[in-house]
């Protein structure tokens, strides 16, 4: 971190206020970014992080307050104007164009021209030079869509920086990257910071905050809670700032239900797999047991879940439920067998945003009954009402379109959708992703309770501490293969980590 001009703020936000329909989304928020620092912007869902970013980058207008860049007040009205002023944003979903070439993406809207004609050769040469700075040596004439999300992120950052950005806002850039890709991204961020660019880093991952950020600003309910140096802020204090209360012990306590070792498996899969998707694996799931699937992103966790649910058709192996061989050709087959699956991507794979909470809850049950046996409106109301009470879905209005609910409540409604079908096996893919810490604890409590009620549970999660907290057994995946199984006392964060990191030879020894 350069020590030149540490006192002069690069970006200074004072008293920013923004209301939506009378509701204060931002209430007199201050925020200061210095040149050359990486500054974490943290807060629960609804804290006002994205509103702050949108106001600063001109996507939203403000009601009151000032934004100053280098001491000069600015008021951009579009993302383009903000970029011209020197503030660039890279979002979680890479906002580039997969159908254009890498070079075109880097230079869209500012292509080098001569007499109005774009100079393609010069553009590609410049693109290669720019990307070399970021440690990428790729074919810049190839369509962007052919590269991985991590590469696309770096290209998006490269574009932003090359647009002479001095403030770079990264909104959850690491959410869909694996550990190695995160490292690559961090290297890029450090290099940019050393060149004097101020970086605002929004993330859910506290580990990453402590790895890379110099300072932290915490928002809660649209207000500024505080700004601290990372080095002098213990983790517990940070969580307290974010939550405004002590984190319940729930997520860190281990309470494995005693394993009924003798009971026969509810569902078992032998040599189950699909070419170029997940290597064949054996897996047995028991009633009253939580099995965790751990591994890095892209290691085959979600793929395993989709295979078990029939969302992807296995081309190897066999499945049996209660000892009887079954066919899993589609989600409908799986649902008929009593399986349920809450997918990771709530918005695209889970909710039907326009339909009401009631309709979303009864959807799977109705689909299983078939369209010829409609649930009466009274039955629907009764089912929806029961689960809204049971899971404490808020607001408790079954006729509200589900798209208007918060992420945590949508997740609970999806859980209700499957619970309504009275499943015997529930597959939860990242049940706590993207929801605030409060709802987090509730979801975990629910998982435990379901398990106690005799459900077989399979939970995919990248939060190792969570998995350790509730799983009786953890299956570790690496490179699209099941590489280790940890059971009982062997389940710990370090054991999982070493299984993920182990080479094949060592992994064998870790496997229980």
């Amino acid at each position, binding site marked *: 971190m350069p020590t030149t001009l540490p006192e002069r703020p690069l970006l200074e936000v004072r008293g920013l206020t923004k209301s939506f329909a009378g509701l204060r989304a931002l209430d007199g928020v201050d925020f200061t970014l210095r040149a050359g620092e990486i500054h974490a912007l943290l807060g629960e869902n609804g804290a006002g992080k994205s509103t702050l970013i949108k106001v600063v980058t001109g996507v939203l207008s403000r009601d009151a307050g000032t934004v100053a860049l280098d001491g000069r007040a600015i008021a951009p009205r*579009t*993302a*383009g104007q903000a*970029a*011209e002023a020197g503030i660039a*944003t890279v*979002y979680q979903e890479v*906002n*580039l*164009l*997969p*159908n*254009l070439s890498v070079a*075109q993406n880097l230079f*869209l*809207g500012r*292509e080098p*021209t001569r007499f*109005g*004609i*774009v100079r*393609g050769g010069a553009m590609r040469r410049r693109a290669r030079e720019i990307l070399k700075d970021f440690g990428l040596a790729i074919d810049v004439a190839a*369509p962007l*869509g*052919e*590269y*991985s*999300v*991590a*590469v696309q992120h770096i290209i998006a950052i490269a*574009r932003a920086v090359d*647009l002479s950005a001095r403030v770079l806002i990264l909104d959850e850039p690491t959410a869909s990257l*694996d*550990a*190695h*890709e995160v490292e690559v991204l961090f290297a890029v961020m450090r290099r940019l910071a050393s060149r004097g660019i101020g970086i605002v880093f929004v993330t859910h991952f506290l580990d990453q905050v402590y790895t890379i950020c110099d300072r932290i600003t915490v928002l809660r309910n649209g207000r500024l809670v505080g700004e601290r140096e990372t080095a002098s802020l213990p983790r517990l204090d940070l969580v307290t700032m974010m939550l405004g209360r002590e984190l319940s012990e729930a997520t860190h306590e281990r309470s494995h239900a005693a394993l009924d070792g003798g009971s026969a498996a509810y569902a078992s899969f032998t040599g189950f797999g699909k070419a*170029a998707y997940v290597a064949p694996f054996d897996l047995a799931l028991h009633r009253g047991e939580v099995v965790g699937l751990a591994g*890095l992103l*892209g290691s085959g966790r979600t793929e395993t879940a989709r295979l078990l649910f029939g969302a992807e058709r296995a081309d190897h192996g066999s499945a049996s439920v209660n000892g009887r061989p079954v066919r899993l050709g589609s989600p409908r087959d799986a649902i008929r067998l009593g399986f349920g699956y809450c997918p990771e991507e709530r918005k695209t794979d889970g909710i039907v945003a326009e339909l009401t909470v009631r309709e979303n809850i009864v959807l799977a049950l109705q689909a299983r009954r078939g369209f010829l046996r409609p649930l009466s409106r009274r039955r629907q109301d009764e089912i929806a009402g029961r689960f809204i009470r049971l899971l404490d879905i808020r607001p408790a209005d079954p006729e509200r379109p589900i798209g208007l609910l918060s992420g945590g409540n949508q997740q609970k409604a999806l859980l209700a959708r499957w619970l309504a079908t009275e499943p015997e096996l529930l597959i939860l893919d990242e049940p706590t992703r993207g929801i605030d810490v409060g709802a987090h604890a509730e979801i975990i409590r629910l998982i435990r309770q379901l398990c106690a009620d005799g459900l077989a549970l399979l939970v995919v999660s990248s939060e190792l501490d969570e998995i350790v907290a509730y799983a009786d057994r953890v299956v570790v995946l690496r490179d*699209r293969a099941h590489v280790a199984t940890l059971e009982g006392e062997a389940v710990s964060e370090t054991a999982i980590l070493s299984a993920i990191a182990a080479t094949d030879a060592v992994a064998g020894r870790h496997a229980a």
Partner: protein
Amino acid sequence: MNRLLPVLVTTAVFLIGFALCCLQFPNFLSTRVVFNLLTDNAFLGIVAVGMTFVIISGGIDLSVGSVIGFTTVFLALAIQRAGLPPLVAFALVLVVCAAFGAAMGAVIHHLEMPPFIVTLAGMFLARGASFLLSTESIPIDAALYTDLPDAAIRLPGGGRLTVIAMIMLAVFVAGGLLLHVTRFGATVYALGGNRTATALMGVRVGRTTILIYTLSSLLAGLSGIVFSLYTSSGNSLAATGVELDTIAAVVIGGTLLTGGQGFMFGTFIGVLIQGLIATYITFDGTLSSWWTKIATGVLLFAFIAFQQSMVGLAGRRSRRRAAGVAPA
């Protein structure tokens, strides 16, 4: 390479089709047939250039046929009834058309409505306006209208490169340059890829959208001028359904109807293929005109199915590549 494939296939289909025609009818292989193909389809080609921009940007323009009809009636009235010199009338009608397209583009952008429904309104409006101007067919007998269609460069083999055909070729060349080597063209592709992302990248989406529909209507107006020259008349029913032929030509030319991919050259071949089918049916003499529609439909299906399988393959490939980025 991949993205060139549809155009290569289109070109191959045209060449094979042409070769088959030549085998069946020895007179087919003559400069006369080839250049008549250009002249007869000039108005379709001009409007297809505009449609190529629209479709690559992820939109659609249903109004072009009506705009052509409106243009012919407007010209007939302006030249025959009001006695305006043809060139003045041309300029006037082009201004009207451009303004009309700009209005549609502005509505699409500012009201955030689908182009399908906005240009549907434009289609009703333009056709209705031409009906209001006149419901009868008006012959135009200005000097320009008798001279220009006959002006042509004579070629060996009886071929005549008419002024009309030259206008179309010029429009294709200009359109190709605009699409492939300018900033505007790159933005058109960007819009077809992802509108929101393009806006977030700081590109002026609204301006480009309005320009695209302005260009489409402007070229529809030019096409109307050519159409009126070709038929020497103005008719409010002229060019009914041409929007469909135009869209078909663009798609047969290898442009993805969902936007983001395509080439101007492909559209040119697409127009020629449509012309080839019509010429074949004329040469045959026993086939009825409806076979043109059926053949166009079959070709349309073949190309759409082909593109669909290409997109499917590309999707699978990129997924594999994404998976293949190893966490070393």
